[in-house]
């Protein structure tokens, strides 16, 4: 994987997967970021207006903090992270050592159903990286 630069083809494939598997399901916004807080790609349902750049910086910091805490208690990692709110929820999932998939969704999707789809998406994205 040539991380740092992603080809146009790879990004298009990833965008299709995110749209088909998560946005169509009813997820408001999906972002893939790297651990430095850069945005790889962001997709939304056209209605949500999040400040994705600030979000990415905070999310990377948040995930890194939780990761450091995991190491302190002797865990390799906490690969799943979920924040629940009144109206919206955020789900974090690690794609690999460098990348993170973040889904923001409302109350009309169950966490279980989202997680099933996220697992599927993560697997498909990994395959795209492997092709390089």
């Amino acid at each position, binding site marked *: 994987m040539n991380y740092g630069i992603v*080809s*146009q083809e790879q990004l298009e494939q990833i965008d299709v997967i995110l749209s088909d598997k998560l946005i169509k399901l009813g997820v408001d916004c999906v972002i893939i970021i*790297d651990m430095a*807080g*850069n945005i790889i790609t962001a997709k939304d349902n056209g209605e949500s207006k999040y400040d994705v750049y600030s979000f990415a*910086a*905070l999310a990377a*910091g948040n995930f890194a903090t939780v990761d450091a805490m995991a190491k302190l208690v002797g865990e390799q990692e906490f690969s799943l992270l979920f924040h629940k709110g009144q109206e919206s929820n955020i789900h974090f999932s690690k794609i690999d050592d460098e990348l993170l998939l973040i889904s923001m969704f409302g109350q009309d999707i169950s966490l279980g159903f989202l997680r099933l789809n996220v697992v599927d998406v993560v697997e498909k994205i990994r395959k795209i990286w492997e092709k390089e």
Partner: protein
Amino acid sequence: MSFINLKEKVVQVKIVYYGPGRGGKTTNLEFVNRTYRKQILSEMVSLKTHGDRTLFFDFLPFDMGKIKGYDIKIQLYTVPGQVKYNATRKLVLRGVDGIVFVADAMEKQREKNIRSLNQLHENLQSYKESIFKIPLVMQYNKVDLKEHGIPVLPLSVLQNDLNSRLKVPYLEASAITGYNVAATLKKIISSSVISIQKKLL
């Protein structure tokens, strides 16, 4: 490492303001935020303690326009300066493209500057980066205090303490009045962008 999106032609550049506590890192970002409000699309994010000290980081993204058809998005971060927060300082340095070392020119802070710079060296090593290779600019902050009768280290001492081996560009500045804040930023942006270009060629 900077991230380059070939599809949307966007380059994201991560610049970190590093240095000892109460040295003026956040003040630098606040000045940039006020002065270049038009180019900044979102609010500055500050994670701080109740005592107004940086707890995790400050974050300020802005657009710099285009270079060879690519949109350059600059992302400014600060680290928490307090000694006890080294774990979080390390996290912020992940994937950094350029660093501004904000040294405190006050005489009594001399040792803290040196200690902080040494720790930066160690922290970069943990990411297999070298302080001698990464784009770096020295900013000797708080030079305005001279006028208020507060003892300030002369430039030669600061240079000898912090920049005798690194030999990187340096500027005297005053983050609170804005003196050389923009000049520091311009310097580090151009060094970082040149370094990214070199890596790509």
